[in-house]
């Protein structure tokens, strides 16, 4: 591997890993499960 290739790999992986981990951790820390009775779609499916 050339040093330029290593540099591109390390920088790109760092950027992607930073945002991917940061955002997913934020999602996990704020689980906000749906609660019945909230505003929102009431329609959808009908089960026999």
């Amino acid at each position, binding site marked *: 591997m050339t040093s330029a290739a290593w540099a591109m790999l390390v920088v790109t992986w760092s950027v992607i890993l930073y945002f991917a981990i940061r955002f997913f951790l934020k999602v996990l820390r704020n689980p906000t499960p749906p609660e019945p009775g909230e505003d929102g779609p009431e329609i959808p499916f009908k089960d*026999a």
Partner: protein
Amino acid sequence: MTAQKEQWASRAGLVLAMAGNAVGLGNFLRFPAQAAQNGGGVFLIPYLVAFVLMGIPLLWVEWAIGRHGGQYGHHSAPGMLDRLGKSRLLKYIGVFGLFTNLTVAAYYCYIESWTLAYVFHSITGTFRSTPPTEFFPAYLGQHAGSITALPPEATLFFVVTLALNVWILSRGLAKGIEMAAKIGVPLLIVFGLILVVRGLTLGTDAPGVVESPLAGLNFVWNPDLSGLKDFNVWLAAAGQIFFTLSVGMGSIHCYAAYVRKNRDIALNAASAGWMNEFVEVVIGGSLLIPIATAYLGLAAVKGATAGGSGFSMGFLTLPSLFNNWGWFAPVAGAMWFGLLFFAGITSSLAMGQPILAFLADEFGAARAKGALLFGGCTFVLGMWCVWLYPGGSFDEFDFWTGTFSLVVFALLEVIVFAWIFGMEKGWAEITRGADMKVPVVFRYVIPYVTPLFLGVVFLGALVQPAGGDWGEAVRGLLDGKGWSLSAGSVLGKLMHVGDTGGWHGPDGEVTPRMVKDLTRILLSLVFLTCGVLVFLAWRRKERRA
């Protein structure tokens, strides 16, 4: 009959389902080849620029359109688009969101079934005795000179894959799709990471290894700075971002429609988008090419990826290379094709749900009935691909539904969102309940920069010049020599550039051209049928009102 409200069981499940929708076979097969062929590491610069200026904004737009439509009981694109403005025509733009999902699912489930078959044959050791280059054409039922095939094993695996999709869809959002994503996405990441570590740690003294796998990694990442000045590289990067995120399909809209009115979409969208990038760049970019380079050498890999696709390496080469791994070979094969299968099924489920939602919202169809109807339509359309695969039906499906329609729909929806719905309301929709601060610059990126990017991708596909040499094509046009169209461009395909034959050959036999034209007629009829269904659904609503 009891009405039940569909909803996601957890936020992480929703994000995993969205990420699973985005992560597809292209993450592992197309991305590394595209990167290697378009400037190596430098490809990542236009790629990330396109991700930020086109990918992320499109994700936010589609999530916003979806959640907005969901508030009015619409979980498929026609109703959602209808709610964005006063024009009665807007709902017909949403027809793309039905057409694309149905037709892409047809051929995509066929590819998905190949991966399932390959898992089976990896475990049973088929590739120890039969090279995949012999196995694959036989599996597809290809015979020299024939444009039709009815392969029993491929058909069986196709039916099994479809049945699995129908069963999961019939279980509903939380118990079906979300559960599949919670199992499939982590597993494909684990499988991918195991194979990456195994591949990159191959020593040059290991049996069969002819070159260091790092030479392959170098091929993907070594930056060729001249690529930054090449329009084709930018076009390829924008195209890759567009197709990897599964935007322009109507499936993101559908999943987002089940998010509550005041719940976050900005962070969810960003999280799913970056997770897809992790799988594509970090795992996808470190898997196929390094392993293939280790056993075949860099020159062979360069030749195999020349067309910008790693498909042949993934299906025809890798299973043989795994044989060098001794007892681990069947496990590695099962992991490789297993991760492709999980990537595939989490995407095909996302194609089915909008169809089920449309049938439920507009025609009151029960979930199980909708899933069966989706499975039936997908089977009929898919069998067209199976039967006429050697004649080119599959490629026609891929081009018109999996490429062209997506770009058209994305371009239209972003224009409707930004310029008809309006950025004031649009921005409020994106940022309402947001768990992250959405940079205000995107308020201006969405109406101006994103449509521009999409317009360039669209034009690039429409009039791509022969040989991909845009400079030469423009000079030719200015010199009065006209524009030399590539046979692979939209106009080139429509005009059958480079194909002078007719529907029948010299001996009266059916030619691939006939298959192509009939496939286009079939796809047009499917689009028309979707349009008629939307028309009937709205007429029904108006009568009731």
